[in-house]
């Protein structure tokens, strides 16, 4: 009945919102997903990304907006009739059913003929490489295996949309990397439209065709991994995209988008993402890998530099992560290809194109999420 076709041109979220007792958990989510796309919903915990996913799944009713597949409105359908598949963070396998039966469950619900169920389950099991465990119960499997069963269970019905709710967060680091590749491979092989929720920006950047960054229930930016990585829309997105050095400074000169910023101790040239005026308070965002320690062998004092004292040196394989403190007491994270001596003074340099300047917003600690507040406290 509702499982008419698994192909569509576009899935549209129109002004989708959800509030819990007057408290908005998700506001005005507008997104058009194309057939076969892999979209990541990214944000810190409590940003509304899981709410968004549950709303789309139909497990939570929407309080605002609508969801359309082509012209068909699906947000009024109950979850079981939307023909979506879902992978849960805690796997949510049926503990009393074997791996095979877990995977067959959705097909049985769709009244697929028995021989076809058998064939498709066998295919799905092969796809996630669980042939040897087909008759085991979920309790006998490891976390990674359970997650593979959960993925097979979601994709075997060839749903119109696969929803994944932080599927890798319960796995250990090594397994997470493997499963990341695995999910990407499955997506490429099956071409299933996927909406993937995660708080791990690396995971999102490496897997998704497009990312949606959420904060406090509001969309901050939608774009390809490159767009988000290179030109974050605001300081929050920049923070989330790995711009660990966020420095509050004042604009001293403006020339188009090239601006000079500084305080009484330092001066930097950067690129303004939005028009700013001289004298405005701004926040500069620099990735650690864009802020380099000038090698002592470098002949001349480089351009666009800051001097600072080395406080911490961590070995990261091919390079060194260095913590430094500027004369005004700011802590910065930088990279170096040689280990500087702790306590010594070094020169840091950055490409002005990689110093992103955002207008400062008044920061209200209360409006921050718990995670952000903790981060802010650590930074101070």
């Amino acid at each position, binding site marked *: 009945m509702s*499982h008419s076709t698994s192909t569509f041109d576009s899935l549209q979220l129109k002004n989708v919102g959800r509030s819990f007792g007057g408290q908005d958990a998700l506001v005005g989510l507008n997104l058009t997903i194309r057939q076969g796309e892999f979209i990541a919903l990214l944000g810190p915990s409590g940003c509304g990304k899981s709410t968004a996913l549950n709303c789309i*799944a*139909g*497990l939570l009713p929407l309080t605002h907006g609508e969801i359309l597949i082509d012209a068909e409105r699906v947000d009024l359908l*109950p*979850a*079981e*009739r939307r*023909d*979506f*598949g*879902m992978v*849960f963070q*805690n796997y*949510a*396998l*049926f*503990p*009393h059913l074997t791996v095979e039966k877990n995977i067959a*469950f*959705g097909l049985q*619900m*769709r009244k697929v003929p028995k021989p076809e169920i058998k064939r498709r389950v066998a295919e799905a099991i092969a796809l996630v490489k669980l042939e040897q465990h087909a008759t085991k119960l*979920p*309790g006998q499997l490891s976390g990674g295996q359970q997650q593979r069963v*959960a993925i097979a*269970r*979601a994709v075997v*019905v060839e749903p119109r949309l696969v*929803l994944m709710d932080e599927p890798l967060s319960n796995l250990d680091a090594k397994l997470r990397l493997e499963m990341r590749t695995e999910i990407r491979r499955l997506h490429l092989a099956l071409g299933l439209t996927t909406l993937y929720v995660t708080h791990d920006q690396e995971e999102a950047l490496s897997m998704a065709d497009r990312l949606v960054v959420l904060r406090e229930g509001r969309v901050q930016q939608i774009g390809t991994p490159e767009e988000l990585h290179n030109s974050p829309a605001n300081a929050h997105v920049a923070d989330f995209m790995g711009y660990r050095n966020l420095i509050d400074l004042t604009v001293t000169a403006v020339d188009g988008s090239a601006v000079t910023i500084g305080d009484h101790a330092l001066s930097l040239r950067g690129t303004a993402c939005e028009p700013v005026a001289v004298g405005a308070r701004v926040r500069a965002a620099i990735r650690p890998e864009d802020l380099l320690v000038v090698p002592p062998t470098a002949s001349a004092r480089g351009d666009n530099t800051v001097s600072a004292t080395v406080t911490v040196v961590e070995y990261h394989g091919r390079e060194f992560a260095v913590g430094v403190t500027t004369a005004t007491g700011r802590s910065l994270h930088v990279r170096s290809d040689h280990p500087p001596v702790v306590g010594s003074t070094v020169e840091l340099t950055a490409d002005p194109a990689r110093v992103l300047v955002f207008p400062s917003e008044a920061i209200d600690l209360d409006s921050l999420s718990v995670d952000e507040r903790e981060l802010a406290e650590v930074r101070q």
Partner: protein
Amino acid sequence: MATQTVPSPPAESPDAPPDPRRRSGARAPGEKSLVAAPSTWIVWAGTAAFFIFLVGILTSVVVDSFGRPWFDSWLPENFVTSWYTDAWQRFGMAHIMGVTLTVALTVIVISTLVGVPAAYQLARRTFPFKRTITLLFLLPVLMPPITYGIPLATVMYNLGIGRTLTAVILVNLVPSIPFVIITMTPFIEQINPTIENAARMSGANMRQILTKILLPLLIPGVLAASILVLVRTVGMFELTFLVSGPQSDTLVVAIYRAMTAAGGGEARQLISSMAVVYTATMMVILIVALRYISPTQLVARVKESRED
């Protein structure tokens, strides 16, 4: 106020709660004491005394039920089984057993059918007046049965259903339904709720979730709750006694009536034989029960039988 003589080990006044507690602490040795401390001996001696009483009571009744005659001696002169056949005929034991089983099974079926859905809602949902409703379900378990039993029995006699099987079943439902709810609620809470979401996302509707996912997962809990209700209903004296009549007495009530009516003399052995039948029945139930549930569940909440 509680300064009366209490027979057995701690004999003197257990007046204020903190005091006996500290004293019991002195009895409870650290778990590493390899040398048996005096406290250990006291614990073991107390336990032994308890068992001597227990075994004594049990064997006396069993010996009595076979003895003819047994008056002023250690053991009866002869052992016979005639008390059983006599009792079986005189008290209509076949009928009494039939009533007992009918009542117990009907109570189990109704209280499970009514209690499990309610427990599911209490475990899974928040809704207005949830606390009030929970309290309402808790009260019949906390109240002395007589407190609500007497008004309930009065209503039943007024309605003309006193002394009927229906009345006996209905009174036993009053504590049984809350009991099923209290036992099943934590059990249901332990079943991961996202499993139900996963089933919905696989396309299962409410009925299919119920039959294919929840029911199989709930069976161990329902089984445990049923056995507990069985034990309680077969053993329930006060409530049944208030509304039952000659045709609707359960075994335990029939024994009480025989004890208070005939009193002493030859009837004692008849009563003993009935009591043995009762205990044997309960033990069979218990042995079956212990295959499915742990002893603590007989009194406490279902905890161990996790599925996922």
